[in-house]
């Protein structure tokens, strides 16, 4: 019986990417980190090395470019070989389908989404319920304490699921680009700058 709540999870959002800097939702776009985003990733690696025994952890990153780069910079700053992690498609950001390359505020205001944010399926994309299903399967596959580098929506969902909050409460949480959140013993603690 997998029990992801028995593990300590270090949840990291990717550093600032070019879409973030421009105020666009990135979805599955290939959006490289900015110089600021690269420094945020390194800073999180240094913090992680202070608060955790990094040699005892599993490392998982969403398979998108910005999260893999964040993971590699984080691992290097934590004194680890950059490539010793697993890329996992289940940790990818929500697929925006036809709504990719839309400013964030327009994308949140879309009427179908506003009417039922959990179940609305974006054309050729995903609903929050679909994202949660794959994220949840990922969590059930964890064998040890883990570092998870992912995106806003999966981070909100993992936090809410771990803490037992409702989806609405979960979606109200803003995970900043520099965010590093430890989930352990049923409680959360935020690190990072």
């Amino acid at each position, binding site marked *: 019986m997998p029990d992801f709540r028995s593990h300590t999870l270090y949840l990291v959002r990717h550093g600032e990417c070019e879409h973030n800097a421009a105020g666009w939702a990135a979805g599955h776009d290939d959006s490289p980190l900015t110089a600021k985003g690269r420094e945020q990733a390194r800073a999180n690696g240094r913090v992680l090395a202070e608060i955790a025994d990094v040699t*005892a952890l599993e490392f998982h990153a969403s398979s998108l470019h910005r999260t893999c780069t964040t993971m590699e910079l984080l691992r290097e700053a934590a004194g680890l070989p950059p490539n010793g992690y697993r890329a996992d498609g289940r940790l990818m950001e929500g697929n925006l389908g036809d709504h990719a390359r839309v400013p964030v505020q327009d994308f949140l205001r879309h009427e179908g989404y506003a009417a039922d944010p959990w179940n609305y399926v974006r054309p050729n994309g995903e609903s929050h319920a679909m994202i949660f299903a794959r994220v949840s399967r990922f969590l059930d596959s964890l064998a040890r304490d883990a570092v998870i580098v992912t995106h806003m929506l999966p981070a909100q969902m993992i936090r809410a699921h771990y803490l037992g*909050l409702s989806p609405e409460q979960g979606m109200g949480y803003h995970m900043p680009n520099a965010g590093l959140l430890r989930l352990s*013993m049923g409680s959360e*603690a935020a690190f990072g700058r």
Partner: protein
Amino acid sequence: MSLRFTLYVARHGQTDANVANRYPGRRETPLTTLGREQARAMGRALLAELGPRPTLKFVASPLGRAQATMRLIRAELELQPDGFASDARLLDIDHGDWTGLTPQEVRARFPENFAEHTGGRWDVPMSGGESYGDLAARVESFLAEIDSNVVTVSHGATSQMLRGLPVGIDPVRITQLPETQGVVFRVRDNVVTQLDS
């Protein structure tokens, strides 16, 4: 065991030990600023559910983090903060020799006990402390004596028992329930519901 009354289950807000990621056991550890906010949020959720100055029982664990949380909840309900009972059966699970350590430190110092407890939490006690089965027995005893609607403030593992035992969730599943802070659960008619907050 099925309950004839409505039970409200709250865990204390975030503490210094939560932030330090250390097993608190029976040691005192104060609420953080976030923990006090979480306590007030639980009070507001109960205010929306019960209205001001509700007439039901209030029982907290004797540990300071639960007592402080209860006082903040009662203030939101426009009640005298100190007018509640304490019950040692709602104490946190006894972490024994693990008390004050991080999970990483426990794994290094007590590798066999850590592995055995993690593999069978219901039956294997933490070294010098309790098993989840031990905790379940004292919470069962508390539940058996409930004779009115009641608000409880306790701890992570204790709150898992208070939600799981009355509705018959199996032991393994009970220990996997979330140990939510800042949220109140209502247990009534064999259904556990999270109050809106």
